């Protein structure tokens, strides 16, 4: 019962945080420096790990598909499989998980520290709502950066699959055939659906991490617990929401 109440409290406070942050949208142009800084942290600094991971995920996907398909003689469909899988599912989910691990944990740690060390209270005392100064720029930054990260992850993953198809002996599929198959069955709608999913995941991850960070009570130990909790809740929410968002988009 206590756990259910805790979950409901978490959902309620997160929605309240979102609504309060959205009420300050008009102040966003005046916070451009914070917005740019968050864009840099969320997008630019996450790009290398997203590129490396998506390249290898695309490669492994092509390798596994080639290994499975060689018994059926349908190697020419590897491009379609990798293209659709990355665009519709793996690209957005993988980027969301990376953002959770790299950005979400940092947000929770930062806000929890500010809360524990009463910096948030000081902001409130100075009549600066933490939702306006701490949450809104992060939400706006993740909303702008998630589609960009996702499309980069997709393209790097597609090229990783193409390289594996060309240089793996038992696949030996030319990049031309690989991309022709991909273009034939992968439409821009698939990529767009992936970007919508990534957008939802990104907003949810930042909201959850901000909420858990701002609701931290206690000392340094609670900061670590909040970070762990934020990452776990974010990962669960990503996978649960993935099902429902996919269901809506199909």
């Amino acid at each position, binding site marked *: 019962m206590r756990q259910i109440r805790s979950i409901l409290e978490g959902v309620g406070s997160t929605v309240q945080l979102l609504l309060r942050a959205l009420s300050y949208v008009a102040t966003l142009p005046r916070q451009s*420096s914070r917005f*740019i*800084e968050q*864009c*840099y942290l969320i*997008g*630019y600094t996450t*790009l290398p790990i997203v590129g490396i991971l998506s390249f290898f995920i695309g490669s492994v996907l092509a390798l596994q598909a080639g290994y499975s398909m060689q018994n059926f003689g349908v190697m020419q469909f590897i491009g379609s499989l990798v293209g659709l899988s990355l665009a519709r599912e793996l690209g957005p989910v993988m980027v969301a998980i990376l953002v959770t691990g790299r950005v979400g944990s940092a947000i929770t740690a930062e806000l929890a520290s500010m809360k524990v060390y009463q910096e948030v209270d000081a902001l409130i005392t100075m009549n600066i709502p933490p939702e306006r100064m701490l949450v809104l720029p992060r939400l706006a930054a993740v909303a*702008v*950066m998630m*589609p*960009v*990260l996702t*499309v*980069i992850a*997709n*393209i790097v993953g597609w090229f990783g699959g193409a390289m594996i198809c060309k240089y793996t002996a038992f696949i030996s599929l030319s990049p031309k055939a690989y991309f022709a198959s991909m*273009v034939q069955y*992968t*439409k*821009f*709608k*698939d*990529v767009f659906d992936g*970007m919508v999913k990534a957008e939802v995941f990104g907003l949810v991850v930042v909201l959850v991490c901000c909420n858990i960070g701002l609701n931290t009570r206690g000392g340094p130990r609670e900061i670590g617990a909040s970070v762990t909790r934020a990452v776990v809740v974010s990962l669960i929410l990503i996978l649960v929401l993935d099902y429902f968002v996919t269901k809506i988009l199909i």
Partner: protein
Amino acid sequence: MNNAQQTARVGLFFLLGVALIWVTYETLSGGKLFRDQGYTLIAGFDDVKDLKKGDDVRMAGVKIGSIDLTRLDGRRAVAVLRVDSGVLIPRDATATIYMAGLLGSNYVGIGMGTAGVPPLSDGQEISTTVTPDFNTIMSELGNLGKKLDGALGSFSSAMNGDGKGNGGLIQNLDHLVTDNRDKIGATLSNLQSVSEKINNGEGTLGKLVNDPDLHDQLLAAINELKATATQANSFMANAQGIVDHVKSGQGSLGMLLYDPQSAENLRVAVQDFRDVSDKLAKGQGTLGKLISDDSLYLSAQSTMKKADRALDGMTDSGPITAVGIVANALF
């Protein structure tokens, strides 16, 4: 890192992302955002099958557009085709839904139509034709299987009986063999005896089979028959030539049969002959009198008698008085 550098990197990163999204869009959807949208045609079908928005519209296998949307229009399904503006489709061209593969993808194929016919314009309806889809073919195959099953059942009943006391072909054959076992045995025995005789060279057939001289004679007889047939053939060819010759009106017979003048001459000759014979029969003229009047005969007989007597006298009186005696007898 100062604030300006950070802003520049974020800006570059964002622009790179937007550019990549644009490239992806151009590659996967043909990038029609700022291009000529072409024109639309309406194609009505009883069933649009698995046709979806974005599927190809092709003419002679070349992509000329895509499906804008599919919707219900009363009691039929309608596909709105967006065709590239550079492609003109004649009014008599027809649209058909084809299967692009077994994976369920379809496309609309448009015929070339007739050259010189005015083209369809934006919003007009194109005529359509229906082709059987995969499900129809499978259904037909199912019906075929049922028919085949029925045919095989009938065949089986015919062979093995229908289980209601009516024996099949095999049972009837079995009864026939069982009932006539002795007769069949005797017949086979006779056949064996006949074959032994033939093998031993007995009888006409046996000699024919075993005696090489008889074989040679038979061969010679056949060769003679062949030669005779050749001669007969040659004779028939000659006869045919003669008949052709006659038919062409050449030669006496041909002229007689096919020349009107000759026929007229013959008719006149026969008529004349008939007149002469009539006169002869009636005793007219010298010859008629000679035939029908015996007085001349009698006179001649009398004269011959007199001559005979005169000759007798001449024998007696000598040759000098012979002339006088003959003259007296005659005159």
